[in-house]
């Protein structure tokens, strides 16, 4: 069963109708090809209409769509070979972040990403993609490992945020994130980051300091979730609704298109019509092209130049004014 978001309901109706017609024609041997074709054309038009006019809140929902491909889905689709590595060597292994060496078109890379789960059991196992300090420390261990062997690093970003938990605080969530930000800024091999779904705050950024940053067409990247923002702005808890979330999502300017406009990201990776989950192979192919091209573009830079350019990239981010005397 396909999962439809609220704003996809008109598409769902049409698609159900098409399936119904197809079933009928199988049974009664009627020729309804032209009718089906017509409806399919209409469904496609409807989809392209709806998906070219998504609001930031609708994009947020799409970025969190339960059928959306996650890091391991993309790794399966992108890589000929992958070996997952575990643990931070200090406390435990965090299933909310996965990583390991992989081959993409014969190029060896280190891939690291947030991992959400599908279905209740796996969702809980993956802690809804919310890492603990161990996840960030594992990621850093793997990045340092890749650096020693001069392998490019690819990170996939897809998290609601770092886990707000007692243990996470006791073991230094802030320090783990801060350390990644600092260390990633001076890793000697190239880093390419792709936001594939939800880029939730510091917990996302902790895998996101990179030489090239891309976002999938319907992904989001934000300092706070629309829900969190709405709760602060309208100062109530629990009884907020989608209208308020929608307003907050508008205000935050969190879409891939916004971030490209702000020059925070390098480019947007197109998704198939209806979102990445409609055709994960298509999305994976586009991601693979972008990764390979970026690796090639960055391959002739010395470590010193890579780090210098990465630093300059961060240095110029900010929006302020200097007063005249």
């Amino acid at each position, binding site marked *: 069963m396909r999962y439809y978001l609220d704003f996809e309901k008109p598409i769902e109706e049409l698609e159900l109708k098409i399936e119904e017609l197809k079933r009928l024609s199988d049974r009664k041997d009627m020729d309804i090809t032209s009718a089906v074709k017509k409806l399919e054309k209409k469904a496609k038009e409807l989809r392209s209409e709806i998906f070219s006019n998504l609001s930031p809140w609708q994009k947020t929902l799409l970025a969190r769509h339960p059928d959306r491909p996650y890091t391991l889905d993309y790794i399966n689709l992108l890589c000929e070979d992958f070996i997952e590595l575990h643990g931070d060597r200090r406390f435990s292994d965090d299933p909310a972040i996965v990583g390991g060496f992989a081959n993409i078109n014969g190029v060896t890379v280190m891939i690291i990403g947030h991992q959400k789960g599908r279905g209740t059991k796996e969702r809980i196992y993956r802690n809804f993609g919310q890492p603990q300090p161990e996840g960030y420390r594992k990621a850093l261990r793997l990045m340092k490992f890749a650096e020693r062997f001069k392998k490019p690093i690819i990170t996939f970003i897809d998290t609601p945020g*770092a*886990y*707000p*938990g*007692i243990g*996470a*605080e*006791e*073991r*230094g*969530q*802030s*320090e783990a*994130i*801060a*350390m990644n*930000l*600092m*260390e*990633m*800024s*001076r890793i000697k091999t190239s880093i390419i980051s792709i936001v594939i779904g939800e880029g939730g*705050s*510091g917990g996302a*950024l*902790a895998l*996101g*300091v990179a030489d090239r940053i891309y976002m999938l067409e319907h992904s989001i*990247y*934000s*300092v*706070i979730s629309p829900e*969190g*923002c709405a*709760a*602060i*702005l*309208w*100062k109530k*808890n629990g009884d907020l609704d989608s209208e308020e979330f929608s307003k907050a999502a508008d*205000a*935050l*300017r*969190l879409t891939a298109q*916004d*971030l490209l406009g*702000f020059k*925070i990201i390098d480019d947007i990776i197109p998704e198939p019509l209806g979102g990445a989950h409609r055709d994960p192979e298509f999305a994976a192919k586009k991601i693979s092209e972008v990764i390979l091209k970026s690796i090639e573009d960055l391959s002739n830079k010395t470590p010193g130049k890579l780090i210098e350019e*990465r*630093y300059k990239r*961060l*240095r110029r*981010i*900010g*929006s*302020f*004014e*200097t*007063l005249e*005397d």
Partner: protein
Amino acid sequence: MWFKKTKEPRLQKKVKIPEGLWVKCENCKEIVYRKEIDKNLKVCPKCNYHFRISAKERIKLLADDGSFMEFDADIVPVDPLNFEDTMSYPERIKENQKKSGLQEAVISGEALINGHHVVFAIMDFSFMGGSMGSVVGEKIMRSAEMVLEKKIPLISVASSGGARMQEGIFSLMQMAKVSAVIGRVKDNGIPYISVLADPTFGGVAASFAMLGDIIIAEPRSLIGFAGPRVIEQTMKQQLPDNFQRAEFLLEHGLIDMVVNREDLKETLTKIIGFLS
């Protein structure tokens, strides 16, 4: 930033010192003579509770008399998102500038501390909860680049609810920007001492504040990534005693020491002495 929506009384308004002659200590609930608290560096004489102090008071506390030379006082915030809630972001900035007497949530500059040259970056919670937007990020970055040039220690004092929501992705990215420049300070063998004052959360904790070579916290300061209320809601369990207090962080190996306000200047001086 998560911190702002908390409604726990222990987190709110503890800075607010009434106009009158007497002050009720938020911690021990004793009524204390206001002048006595002021004389005592805004520390409760009954229970050692450290009231929040402004960046200017902090400079007075730490810098040798008349030695402070401010940097970058002319950098002011703009409104990159056209952010509007109950009031527009520019209006909110104006209101906070008026209320706090500051341009922004951090003051940076060069000073002497018992004769040692240092650069300070000191946050002020009274300006939009000490939140880090583009101006705070830029001033901290420039302070760090200044110590790279002058080869003198960097001392930051954090007091912040986290990233500044009204600047969206720009404020998030400041975390990476300031962490990157701290990396350069470390690469160049220049000491960086981070002081955590009440409260230090979110994007400030998860960037420069927790990256100090030495991290010092004031007694009982609340320090963490996620705010206590959010954690309580997520975990649906009571938080341990002293959770996210400076003493709790010390016990868990996350900071080097908890230092009383009256000893802070001497402690910093001693550390700088070891490292120069």
